[in-house]
């Protein structure tokens, strides 16, 4: 049993705004939903499956009321930034099982100008033992980066190469929050946030969102847009619940090979990769864990130009979370949208990979103490 080819992405939309001071969050969901459905050539009345993180109001139900949906299948999986990649996999499984035929996945977020405070939820068991020490997202990834440097000799300049590659793509994306190409020197001379991570090692903080429409093959056949097949999907949860968690690898060690196996394709067949880039170190570790290079060689790999248009694996051609967009601290949906653009041949012309037939989109939700990795393998209908 596999989901290979049993569901297709026919609509994909990334909200063009990065600052939305006058929008409500559900309004962002609605704009994205309507635009993705228009992209697909479908009506909101066609939707019979609804997927969101359920962070707003009463699980996923509040948004179904706002949008007037009456889904026969609902999923409100929330696993941080990788949620939306999980939604695509869950939607494909639901469609394959006949539970729904038109699945709508939406994201909406407003976080610009909001001062982050300590996370305190009485019923969250780990928080009391972490927030009191002043942990931040950047600090947790900094712990990973320092350990990676210690074990493998990774350098700040190699971390910076990830940001440089993202910025060189972002200059061609008219909607990217940061469009100016930067150098390694710019990154390592930017203010230290949590050493060894500088400001330019960190992703952007944006409002916005997007939406994805996943449908059954018989629906896709009646539409005008080139369908993108969901070929493989795998999830891996990593935590310290059975003993100390290492901070130098991600759940991609497990999820990437599993998703590729379901798709029946080799890593060397992948022409484009959307790799979650909350921080520069996230990309280096994830590329290693996929097997694009050996464990510990990720720094040298990215510094060699591997992520560029002529590199081993062109990555995050929209500028990624580091330069383009990372709505509500969750970059997973945008990762899917850029992979769909590449497979449709609709990326910005300067960054379009010729004849892109197979792509991966990978999300890393949470931090290094605990995380949810989700890998999707997507392909053109002729893949």
């Amino acid at each position, binding site marked *: 049993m596999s989901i290979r080819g049993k569901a297709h992405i026919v609509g994909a939309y990334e909200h063009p705004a990065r600052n939305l001071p006058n929008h409500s969050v559900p309004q962002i969901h609605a704009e994205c939903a309507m635009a993705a459905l228009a992209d697909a050539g479908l009506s909101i009345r066609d939707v019979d499956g609804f997927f969101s993180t359920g962070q707003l109001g009463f699980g996923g139900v509040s948004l179904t009321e706002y949008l007037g949906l009456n889904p026969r299948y609902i999923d409100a999986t929330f696993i941080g930034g990788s949620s939306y990649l999980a939604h695509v996999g869950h939607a494909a499984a639901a469609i394959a099982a006949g539970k729904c035929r038109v699945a709508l996945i939406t994201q909406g977020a407003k976080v610009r100008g909001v001062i*982050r405070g300590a996370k305190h939820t*009485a019923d969250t068991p780990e928080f009391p*033992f972490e927030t009191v*020490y*002043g942990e931040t997202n950047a*600090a947790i990834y900094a712990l990973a980066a320092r350990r990676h440097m210690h074990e493998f000799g990774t350098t700040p300049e190699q971390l910076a190469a990830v940001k440089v590659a993202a910025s060189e793509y972002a200059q061609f994306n008219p909607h990217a929050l940061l469009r100016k190409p930067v150098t390694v020197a710019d990154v390592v001379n930017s203010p230290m946030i949590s050493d060894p991570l500088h400001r330019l090692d960190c992703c952007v903080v944006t409002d916005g969102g997007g939406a994805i429409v996943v449908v059954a093959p018989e629906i896709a056949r009646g539409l005008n847009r080139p369908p993108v097949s969901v070929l493989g999907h795998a999830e891996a949860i990593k935590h310290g*619940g059975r*003993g100390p968690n290492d901070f130098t690898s991600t759940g991609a060690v497990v999820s990437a090979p599993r998703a590729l196996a379901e798709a029946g394709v080799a890593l060397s067949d992948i022409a484009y990769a959307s790799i979650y880039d909350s921080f520069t170190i996230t990309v280096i570790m994830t590329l290693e864990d996929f097997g694009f290079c050996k464990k510990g060689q990720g720094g040298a790999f990215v510094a060699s130009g591997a992520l560029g248009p002529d590199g081993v694996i062109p990555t995050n051609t929209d500028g990624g979370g580091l330069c383009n967009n990372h709505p509500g601290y969750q970059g997973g949906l945008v990762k899917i949208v850029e992979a769909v653009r590449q497979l449709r041949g609709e990326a910005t012309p300067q960054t379009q990979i010729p004849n892109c037939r197979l792509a991966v989109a990978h999300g890393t939700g949470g931090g290094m103490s605990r995380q949810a990795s989700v890998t999707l393998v997507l392909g053109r209908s002729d893949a």
Partner: protein
Amino acid sequence: MVETVETRLPTPEPFISPETAPFWLAAKQGRLVLPFCNNCNHAIWYPKAFCGACGTLNVEWRQTSGDGTIYSFTQVHRGEGPYREVESFVLALVDLDEGARLLTNIVDADPASLTIGQRVRVVFHDAGESAALPRFIPAS
């Protein structure tokens, strides 16, 4: 030896539940205790009434040495919440000799002098009526 060190760091009062109160109360008394599994002897972190390593509710509180080594550390220059006004501080992962890997702060040390693998030992900073925060200093 119980040692309390004055600190410039915030000492936020943790959320204390009946499940975890013994951890915080022991810290208040200058002892670092953890739940240990009576089945597999796993030192459980974070403190809870369940051993995820072997899947049992059969756990008990035991005192630890309070000695450990630095697994990784970072000097944080952009704090959040109660740490927002602090110019910088050190967040670290410390491997206790008993096997647990704790998120904590290293205090009373020059951040530039810290290294991965360095030996550290626990100190306690009062945080309210019924708790103290275990933090670590370089072992002399």
